[in-house]
């Protein structure tokens, strides 16, 4: 990374004002497995497709959904190894925050610092942009009463741009998934409804049969911790949905 022969930035503007490397990174994301999130009044849910290339892969050691702070978690679409680098950075920066302020990092701050890292990799010399879009779900601090933590869902793109969403999807079939969510999302949705809707949305574009072992679901409730559901918990929700 310190080799002076590659000290120029690989992400340079095209004549039309685009950063083509970022466009191509977004293509890598659009080819990735679907990931979606829904923000409810009392929590947030993330769900993703975890289809593996072969039945021989040991699925219990594959993690797409990761906990970053006790009250927030992240999932991705795109290039897995790039994602793991970002998760490591995010975990470290949130521990630094916690060490200084004695509180869990609010998710909006986590998003800003992660987005900052991703932007850095579009401008620094000798590096390429990250080939992932992230969905970060967690609890934000409001400026009112101490006990009110606000559920929030954010998307972060390879360019470093971030957006707050009520519900969204990224990866393969994200267009039809988002259309489905647009019809189903309501402002008074509770977490249990949101989990059901997330599973239904995921099933819409799923290739083959969706089981508790080839998807991952993560939730965070207001006042609780981010947890990745076990296959048996997912199976209960799937049974209810059927």
């Amino acid at each position, binding site marked *: 990374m310190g080799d002076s022969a590659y000290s120029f930035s690989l992400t340079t503007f095209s004549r039309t004002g685009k950063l083509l490397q970022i466009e191509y990174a977004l293509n890598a994301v659009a080819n990735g497995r679907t990931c979606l999130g829904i923000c409810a009044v009392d929590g947030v849910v993330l769900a993703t497709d975890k289809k593996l290339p072969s039945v021989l892969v040991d699925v219990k050691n594959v993690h797409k959904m990761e906990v970053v702070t006790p009250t927030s978690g992240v999932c991705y679409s795109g290039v897995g190894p790039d994602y793991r680098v970002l998760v490591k950075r995010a975990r470290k920066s949130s521990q630094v925050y916690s*060490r*200084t*302020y*004695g*509180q869990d990092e*609010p998710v*909006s*701050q986590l998003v*800003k610092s992660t987005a900052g890292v991703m932007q850095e990799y579009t401008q620094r010399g000798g590096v390429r942009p990250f080939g992932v879009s992230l969905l970060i779900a967690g609890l934000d*601090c*409001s*400026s*009112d*009463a*101490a*006990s009110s933590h606000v559920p929030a869902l954010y998307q972060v793109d390879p360019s470093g741009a971030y957006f707050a969403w009520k519900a969204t999807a990224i990866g393969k079939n994200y267009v039809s998934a988002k259309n489905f969510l647009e019809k189903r999302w309501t402002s008074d949705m509770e977490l249990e409804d949101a989990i059901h809707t997330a599973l239904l949305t995921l099933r819409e574009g799923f290739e083959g049969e969706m089981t508790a072992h080839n998807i991952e679901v993560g939730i965070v409730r207001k006042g609780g911790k981010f947890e990745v559901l076990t296959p048996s918990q997912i199976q209960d929700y799937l049974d209810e949905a059927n």
Partner: protein
Amino acid sequence: MSIMSYNGSAIIAMAGKDCVGIAADRRLGIQLKTVSTDFTKTFQMQPKLFVGLAGLATDVQTLHNLLEFRMSLFKLREERDMPPEVVNNLLSTLLYEKRFGPYFVEPIVAGLDEDNKPFLSCMDLIGSSVKANDFVVSGTCTGNMFGMCEALYRPDLNPDELFEALAQSLLSSVDRDAMSGWGGVVHIITKDGVMTKELKGRMD
């Protein structure tokens, strides 16, 4: 000669019913010479939060500026006020960063949290902090202040009673200390605002 008593100071903070008060003397000395009688040692960092800094005057001012810097950045980034507990943790971290060349201050944090409940804490010069429900003291006559507070404090005082308790505790404590006194100031913080009063005491 102790560096913590080079300039002289006395600060007390007490909790009342849905209110907190913080009182400090006004003396700035250079050993035996009194140089100023209106030196500020209590700083309103936020509408419902005060920080009191006792110790070496240059570090009082520097640490105030440093805290102002960090709290402003926090407010800009997080779009919310810093809760008193977080101010306490931040101060603790800032002080420990200088563990082997410390700031010679012993701060007090006094304020109302987001639910308007009183918050009090004090710490030593390297960041070891302790929270209290009743009162905290810091300065060159802590022995005197502890005695006075223990005698005059009662739980759940209203703002006027709290003012009396704070003012009497401070004035009597500094009268037996050569390095502190020369006037006093008391701030009472309630959810509706801050009431500040100057104290008339022995100017010696």
